[in-house]
C-alpha cells in the first residue's frame, strides 16, 4: 500500500485535498457551489478537445476552465439577483462546454475508456513527473487565496459592507473563479472532474456546520478533506472499487455528521 508508485498517489492526493479544502471552503461560503461543479466538469470537455487536435491535455483543461470561469464571472449578476443570475449563467456555461465535449469525443477516435478516466480520474497511475506541477500549482493557489483572504471573506460574509468600502463583490467572484479554474485544471487529469467536486463541497460544508469562525472552518475543511482522501485511498486500494465512490460517500457522511453535531450542540454556529 505504501510502495514506490503508491507514494506518488498518496502525495498527489494529499496536495489535491489541501487545494480542494481551501477552494471548497470559499465556494461554499460564497454560494458558488454550482460553479465548483461546473468548472471541473467543463474542463473535462477541454481535455477531450485537446486530445482531438493532438496537443497536451493540460492546455485544453486550462483554456476551458479559465474560459468558463471568465464567462460565469463576466455574465454573472450583482446585488439582489446575483444568486439566481449566476446560477443561470453557470448552467449555460456548463452545458456549452459539455456540448463541445460531446462533439470532440464523437469527432475524435478516442476510446470511451479515456473519457471515463477524465471524468473519474486515475489517481493510482500518477507518475513522478506529475507530482511536481501539482505541488507547484497547490502553492500558487494557496498564495492566491492567502493574498486575497480579507476581501474574499468580506465580500462573502458582508457584501453590502464590502461594496461600501469599495471592494467589488463581482470582481471578487471573478478572482475566486479564476483561482478555482487554475486549481482544477491541474487536478482534473489526476483525480477526475467528479471527484474534485465532491472533495470541494463535502468537507467544506461539514466544517462550516460545526464552526462559525472562518479561520477554524478553513483549517477544519482542509483537515476533513485530507481525512476523506486518505480513507478513500486505503479503502479503494483494498476493495479495488473506484476512488470517486469512496470520496463521494465519505464526504457526504462527514456532512451528515457535521449536521448532526450542530443539531445536538448549543446553537452557536451560523446557518448554512
Amino acid at each position, binding site marked *: 500500500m505504501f510502495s514506490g508508485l503508491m507514494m506518488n498517489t498518496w502525495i498527489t492526493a494529499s496536495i489535491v485535498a489541501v487545494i480542494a479544502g481551501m477552494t471548497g471552503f470559499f465556494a461554499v461560503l460564497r454560494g458558488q457551489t454550482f460553479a465548483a461543479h461546473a468548472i471541473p466538469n467543463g474542463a473535462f470537455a477541454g481535455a477531450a478537445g485537446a486530445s482531438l487536435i493532438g496537443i497536451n491535455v493540460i492546455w485544453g483543461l486550462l483554456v476551458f476552465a479559465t474560459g468558463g470561469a471568465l464567462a460565469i464571472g463576466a455574465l454573472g449578476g450583482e446585488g439582489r439577483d446575483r444568486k439566481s443570475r449566476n446560477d443561470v449563467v453557470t448552467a449555460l456555461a456548463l452545458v456549452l462546454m459539455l456540448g463541445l465535449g460531446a462533439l470532440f469525443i464523437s469527432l475524435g477516435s478516442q476510446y470511451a475508456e479515456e473519457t471515463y478516466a477524465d471524468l473519474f480520474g486515475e489517481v493510482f497511475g500518477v507518475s513522478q513527473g506529475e507530482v511536481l506541477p501539482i505541488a507547484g500549482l497547490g502553492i500558487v493557489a494557496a498564495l492566491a487565496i492567502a493574498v486575497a483572504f480579507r476581501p474574499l471573506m468580506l465580500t462573502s460574509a458582508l457584501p453590502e459592507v464590502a461594496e461600501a468600502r469599495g471592494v467589488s463583490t463581482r470582481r471578487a467572484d471573478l478572482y475566486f473563479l479564476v483561482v478555482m479554474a487554475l486549481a482544477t485544471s491541474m487536478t482534473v487529469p489526476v483525480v477526475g472532474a*467528479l471527484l474534485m467536486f465532491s472533495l470541494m463541497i463535502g468537507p467544506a460544508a461539514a466544517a462550516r456546520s460545526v464552526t462559525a469562525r472562518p479561520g477554524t472552518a478553513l483549517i477544519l475543511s482542509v483537515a476533513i478533506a485530507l481525512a476523506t482522501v486518505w480513507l478513500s485511498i486505503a479503502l479503494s486500494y483494498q476493495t479495488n472499487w473506484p476512488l470517486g465512490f469512496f470520496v463521494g460517500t465519505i464526504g457526504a457522511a462527514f456532512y451528515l455528521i457535521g449536521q448532526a453535531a450542530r443539531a445536538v450542540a448549543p446553537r452557536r454556529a451560523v446557518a448554512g
Partner: protein
Amino acid sequence: MHYLFEPGLFSSGPVRTALLVGAVVAITSGVIGVFTVMRGQSFAGHSLADVATTGGSGAFLIGVNQFWGFLVAGVAAAAVMEAIGVQRRRGRDVATGVVLGAALGAAALFLYLGTLRTATTGASFSVLFGSIFVISPDTVPALVASGVIALLVVAVLARVLLLTSVSPDLARARGVNVRLVGIAYLAALAVSVSLAAVAIGAVLSTALLIGPSATALRITKTPGRAMAVSALAGLVATWLGIVLAYDSYYWPPHGRGWPVSFFVVALVLVGYLLSYVRPRGKRVPRSPHEGVECSPA
C-alpha cells in the same frame, strides 16, 4: 430545402421517434424550467439530471431499461434534497452539492461494476450524453406519459407555485402550504429532468431546462407568456438540432455524425445571447414593483 432536409429524414423510424420524444422533452422542460429559473433552483435542476445518471447506470448494471433507473433516482434525489433543506435559500446549494457528490460517487461505482461485467465501453458515454436516435420504441409511451403527468402537476399548481416562487411569505399568510407545493414541484422537476436525461443525456438536459426559460424570462413580461415562449424556443432548438445532427452524417469527418446534444446546446445558447441584444427602446422597465415576477435571469 434539399440541403436542410437530407434524403430519408422523415422516413427513418429512429428520426420520427426522436422528433416525438424531443418535442415532449422540450415542452415539458420549457414550462417547468420557467419555475426553476424563477425559484433560483437551476443547480438543483442540473443536479437532478446528474443524479438520474446514477439511476441510469444502476439500471444498466441490473439490466433494466435505463428510463426507469433515471426516473426512480431522480424522484428519490428530489425527496432527499427536500429533506435536507433545498427549500431554504441559504445552504440549499450545499445540500444539493452534497447529494450530487454522493450520487456521482455511486455512479462511478455502478459504471465500474458495469464495465467489469459486460466490457461494453460505450456505456458511460451514452449514459452521460444520451443518444436520442437509439430510444427503443417500447419506452416512448412511458416517456410521453411521464411528460404529460409532470406538465399536469405544474398546470394544476401554476397559480400557487407562482405565488410561492415570488413571495413565500405572502403565500404562507394566505394559508398555502409552501413546503407541500415545493415538494410537488420538485417531484415534477425530477420527472421532467429524467425524461430529458434519457433523450439528450443527463448532463445536457440542463440546457433545455434552463436555456429557453432564462431566455423567455428575459424577453417577456408575464410568466404565462414566458412559459409559452420557453416551450416554443425549446421545441425549435430540439427539432432543428435533430435535423442538423441527421444532416451531419454527410459532413466531415465522413460517416460519423455530430451529436444532437451539441447542436441543441449551441442553438439554446444563441437564443440566450440574442436576448441580450434586443433594441434599447423596447427595454422592460425594472422598477421594484413592476415585472418583479420575472426579475431573475
